[in-house]
């Protein structure tokens, strides 16, 4: 389980610039979706090691309006599994760009894994600034 030392967390100001960091990572794979999944994991694992136990178990693509030919909207469904407890969950995304649809479904799946299992949480103000 990923845990944060909350006593130290309270000593830091979430509004400070150092509380968050931007990570730029590169991943390679047998296709663009595989490469994006690899890059996402490289970017997130240092801060969220819990994701090491998360795996992608199913990836489905369906064309919604075939008449639009190569410009058709694509629905991507991705099923994830948590290897630690065998729990599965599915995310969906629709876009005319199959790469965007795939990445959005992937992001949702990883975010869900973190919020379901995180022992810490952060709060934002409505304007997006972080609350202590």
């Amino acid at each position: 389980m990923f845990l944060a030392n909350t006593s130290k967390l309270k000593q830091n100001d979430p509004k400070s610039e150092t509380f968050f960091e931007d990570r730029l990572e590169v991943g390679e794979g047998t296709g663009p979706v595989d490469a994006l999944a690899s890059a996402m994991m490289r970017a997130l694992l240092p801060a969220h090691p819990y994701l090491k136990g998360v795996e992608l178990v199913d990836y489905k693509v369906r064309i919604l309006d075939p008449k639009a030919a190569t410009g058709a909207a694509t629905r991507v469904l991705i099923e994830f599994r948590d290897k630690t407890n065998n729990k599965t969950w599915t995310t969906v995304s629709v876009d005319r760009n199959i790469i965007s649809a795939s990445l959005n479904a992937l992001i949702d799946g990883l975010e869900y894994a973190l919020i379901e299992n995180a022992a810490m949480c952060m709060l934002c103000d409505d304007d997006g600034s972080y609350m202590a």
Partner: protein
Amino acid sequence: MGKIQEVGLDWGEVTNERAMAILNRVKALENKGYSFEGADASVHLMILHATKGYCPPFQVLDYSANVNDSNMDSASRVLKWDSKKKELGRQHGSKNDGPTARATVKVRTTNVSSFGVYVDESNTSGHELTDYVSRQYFETKTERP
């Protein structure tokens, strides 16, 4: 409303105004082709994102993906007769091994060096804290009075 309660939020946390915004969002997405049946995690996240105070654990700021593959084999092109080897061969040679795509992502997430992060080893078989994380943690501590 049932979904909102499943997410574990009190109804008071999601005002009627926000509930209507969620419903309108679902309708707009369904018109776009979304079908949430079976994708409960996406519904869960949509409700959370519409909830006051929710802060996602990370944000993807931008991304790029490039495909670099010279292997143009297909069902028809791969079956080319190689007269020298006297067998069916590939038109452009075998390049099936190794990655063919490269992607970059820029992600905003919590800075693990800004607070002490530890991993409960009893629950993390197979997990490891990288040198980078632990090194940064101590460097940060020395910078603070």
